[in-house]
């Protein structure tokens, strides 16, 4: 009797597994041959300003309903297309759909001309110039600023250093504040000055493969687990596309300017952001000088910027209108994927909308 009931189930299971084996073989061959590379960063945009390797992008929209415009400041370690990964899985696309006039400051790929770049270059020169461009193009008096990962640090330093900055609000996502909690990269950087020099390539920058290895090693078993996951779901076209896009990005780092690496080493040794000891161009910078409406977003499973690194920020910022959003998610998962689309991004949009005006 039991056999009769289960027999069709077993046949179904065998049939399903056979079908999946065929799909696995097809997708495996496609991946190995490099035939099915997913398109990334596809939301239409224009380069509205360029200086050196730095570009300011404006995402096209016929339906801007929110003012002020939003300027996203990306980090210095990886490529910004993670924020616009794929159609239907894009932070930028969701912001544009919500009616924002979205700009993104992309630092490009540093080369030997950027080896001497220091934080001051970004905080005092590039970001203010980009903010001016956004104001000029949009005609708005103020801008909302959003920093992601190390872009958060740049945004925070900009807001702290320029108390008259035309900011309506500041949002930071996965901001590395306690640099001593970050793991191998900053541990190696933070040892001694000479250790930084050991990391630099002939062009004077920390090469992308070192940055990549530093992030990879944070989850030693991940390299195997991701292949196990892939084999498990190789039959699923959507999974394979998302996997290729994500894994492609995760290995797609850019060189870190040597000047910034030296400063990071010093900042790690003194834990400058936590201990209020940041010095830029000879001036002390206090995060407590930030007074604009403020939101910090952190993921509880973020292995690159762990909770312990991002958590001190809320107490360091001087704003009276300040909020912390702790979410279930990893470093990328707070802005990419289904959970982000349903939880984080709507929460960020709500925070921004409450401080914005609707354009009629």
């Amino acid at each position, binding site marked *: 009797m039991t056999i009769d009931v289960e027999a069709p189930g077993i046949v179904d299971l065998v049939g399903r597994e056979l079908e999946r084996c065929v799909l696995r073989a097809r997708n495996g061959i496609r991946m190995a041959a490099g035939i099915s590379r997913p398109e990334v960063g596809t939301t239409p945009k224009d380069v509205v300003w360029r200086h050196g390797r730095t570009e300011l992008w404006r995402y096209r929209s016929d339906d801007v309903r929110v003012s002020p415009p939003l300027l996203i400041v990306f980090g210095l370690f990886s490529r910004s297309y993670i924020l616009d990964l794929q159609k239907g899985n894009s932070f930028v696309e969701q912001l544009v759909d919500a009616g924002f006039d979205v700009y993104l400051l992309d630092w490009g790929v540093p080369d030997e001309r950027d080896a001497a770049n220091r934080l001051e*270059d970004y905080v005092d020169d590039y970001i203010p110039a980009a903010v001016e461009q956004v104001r000029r193009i949009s005609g708005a008096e103020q801008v909302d600023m959003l920093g992601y990962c190390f872009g958060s640090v740049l945004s925070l330093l900009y807001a702290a250093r320029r108390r008259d900055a035309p900011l309506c609000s500041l949002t930071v996502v996965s901001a590395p504040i306690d640099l001593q909690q970050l*793991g*191998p990269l900053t*541990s190696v950087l*933070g*040892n001694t000055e000479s250790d930084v020099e050991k990391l630099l390539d*002939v*062009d004077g920058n920390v090469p992308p493969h*070192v940055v990549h290895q530093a992030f990879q090693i944070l989850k030693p078993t991940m390299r195997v687990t991701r292949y196990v996951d892939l084999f*498990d779901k190789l039959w699923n076209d959507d999974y394979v596309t998302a996997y290729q896009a994500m894994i492609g990005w995760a290995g797609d780092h850019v060189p870190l300017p040597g000047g910034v690496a030296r400063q990071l080493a010093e900042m790690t040794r003194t834990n400058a952001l936590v201990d209020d000891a940041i010095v830029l161009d000879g001036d002390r910078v206090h995060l407590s000088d930030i007074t604009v409406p403020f939101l910090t977003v952190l993921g509880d499973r973020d292995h690159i910027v762990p909770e312990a690194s991002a958590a001190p920020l809320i107490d360091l910022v001087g704003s009276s209108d300040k909020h912390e959003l702790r979410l279930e998610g990893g470093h990328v998962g707070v802005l990419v994927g289904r959970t982000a689309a349903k939880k984080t991004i709507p929460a960020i949009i709500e925070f921004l909308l409450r401080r914005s005006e609707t354009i009629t």
Partner: protein
Amino acid sequence: MTGLPSWRTPYDFAERLVAPPAEALVRSDRFAAVAATVFGIRRAVGDGLNGLAATVWHLVNLPAGSDLHRMHAQLGALDRDVRRLSLQLEQRDTARTGSDGR
């Protein structure tokens, strides 16, 4: 039905067992010290080979790769100064236009 194939259970079990100590190890000071030493050795070997190559090129009165890198670095630093100056001039112009407008 969890949808997971049967072979995943032992793998996930092993992964849960191995991952925490491995992650703790890579975040330890000892690991950082070993990594720094490895980078140092790699750098020292690279510098030694480059130095040897440079000596050979200099013997025949030709510039070595390290000379070119040094020149690139100097040009890069100059390029950076020019970029920063032009951005600062832009900012000054914007500030002046703004105050004139008011």
